[in-house]
């Protein structure tokens, strides 16, 4: 099979699917041309992610990566969410095929983008280095 059981589980029973009214932070990454867009909504209380939702347009691994990433940051402090790496998502999913690693990168970036949005909205100072774009889509250059 193309995907691990973990990936199939998170794809067929995704956790935290949905949108959120009055989210404290929203991050959207990806490109429609490339076939995947990930959007993450955060509810934040005292620097803790108390709730998280996602909506994703993309393949099985994009949906599974979103689901896993939201599980990994739910209930965690923002500092910890910002430390989430795509490798950690891949490991938690018991691996992704090489040409799908891009999906886990999107998940990491969507989380960061949502936290950044929260910081920006609330005028919170942050180290810009954390949000430096680490990844360029080799397809569209975005």
């Amino acid at each position, binding site marked *: 099979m193309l995907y691990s059981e973990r990936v199939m589980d998170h794809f067929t029973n995704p956790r935290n699917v949905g949108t959120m009214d009055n989210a404290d932070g929203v991050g959207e990454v990806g490109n429609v041309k490339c*076939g995947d867009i990930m959007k993450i909504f955060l509810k934040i209380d005292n620097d803790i992610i108390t709730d998280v939702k996602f909506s994703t347009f993309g393949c099985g691994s994009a949906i599974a990566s979103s689901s896993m990433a939201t599980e990994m940051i739910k209930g965690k402090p923002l500092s910890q969410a910002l430390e989430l790496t795509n490798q950690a998502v891949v490991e938690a999913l018991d691996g992704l095929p090489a040409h799908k690693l891009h999906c886990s990168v999107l998940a990491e970036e969507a989380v960061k983008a949502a936290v950044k949005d929260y910081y920006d909205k609330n005028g919170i100072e942050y180290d810009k280095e954390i949000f430096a774009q680490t990844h360029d889509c080799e397809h569209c250059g975005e």
Partner: protein
Amino acid sequence: MNRIYVDNAATTKMSKAAIEAMLPYLEECYGNSSSLHTVGQLAAEALFKARQSIAESIGADIKEIYFTSGGSEADNQALISAAEMGARKGKKHIISQKTEHHAILHTLKKLEKQGFKVDLLNVDGEGNVTPEQIAEAIGPDTALVTIMTANNEIGTIMPIKEIAAVCKEKGVLFHTDAVQAVGHIPLDVHDIGCDMLSLSAHKFHGPKGAGALYVRKGLMPSCLIEGGAQERGRRAGTENIAGIVSMAAALKEAIGNISENTPRLIAMRDRLIKGLSEIPHSILNGSIINRLPGSVNMCFEGIEGESLLLLLDAKGICASSGSACTSGALDPSHVLLAIGRPHEVAHGSLRLTLSEENTPEEIEFIIKSTKDVVEYLRNMSPIWQDLQEGKRKYVIQ
């Protein structure tokens, strides 16, 4: 789980007749047709009969059939043969079109690197190329025109008879990749008027690993695989006797069933198109009229094809998509892009290719399941939300 196989353009299940035809050549008559002893000569005789049967099936002469390992090899051999024949006369221009199979497109790329000039004609919104376009593109140095009989993704049947007539009039060789058409629609090489034609056994309930190239008498195909004198010196390697015999049986059976199967397939195909078209913001890809009897290809806006396929598979439905994610490529199907679908719409495509084994009940189940899955995926798609909220404009109305 009950599986519903609707990916017959990818490959087909072997028919009973094809399997039975093959078994004696695995178990008893396993000889090498080049051997002089009885076991070898039994194989040689089977090879002769299979060649005769396949020739008859497409209206060719026995000497015009060259066995290959399948459609891709036949396509490679046809194009390289025509290129070499052309080059000898100083003709180094080849005409094709954008929705061809990669066996054609990649061979043309290779020829381009060797100094040939390749023109890939645009197709219209249904995936058609016209004889007029061909006539206009042909120049004094044109060595070959190659146009597929029917498209593997969107099922559009090309006007190859008219195109062949244009080529004949201008004295240009014409090859057609008929891999998706042979055994599915009536075809006769003389009626078409082609110089070369490729076919592949596993597309008409024969085995994988067997195919053939028809080359009109008077033309000498180039040899791509050097070695022994098999295939009259044009393709070395001990023949795949079991596969070839089985291919002949499968083709004979498929052609014999065309008139009975076609109306059934068309009825199921059209029901599927009608049912899936009820999904809002969906569109049929390819021609509604000039279409292979079992071929359906639709795009659904706001979703991605791989996740659609995986969820259909979970319901037992085996289908295919032109989404980039399903192929590991970065771009979605070149065919869908060629007919003008934007990337985001092409990613959301679904191909369902039927066989006579499918039933109307299965078709209803596919319609219901696809509707459910599309709705489910749209509900978790940020693009769909944007479309619904008017933040993004629908591409498919």
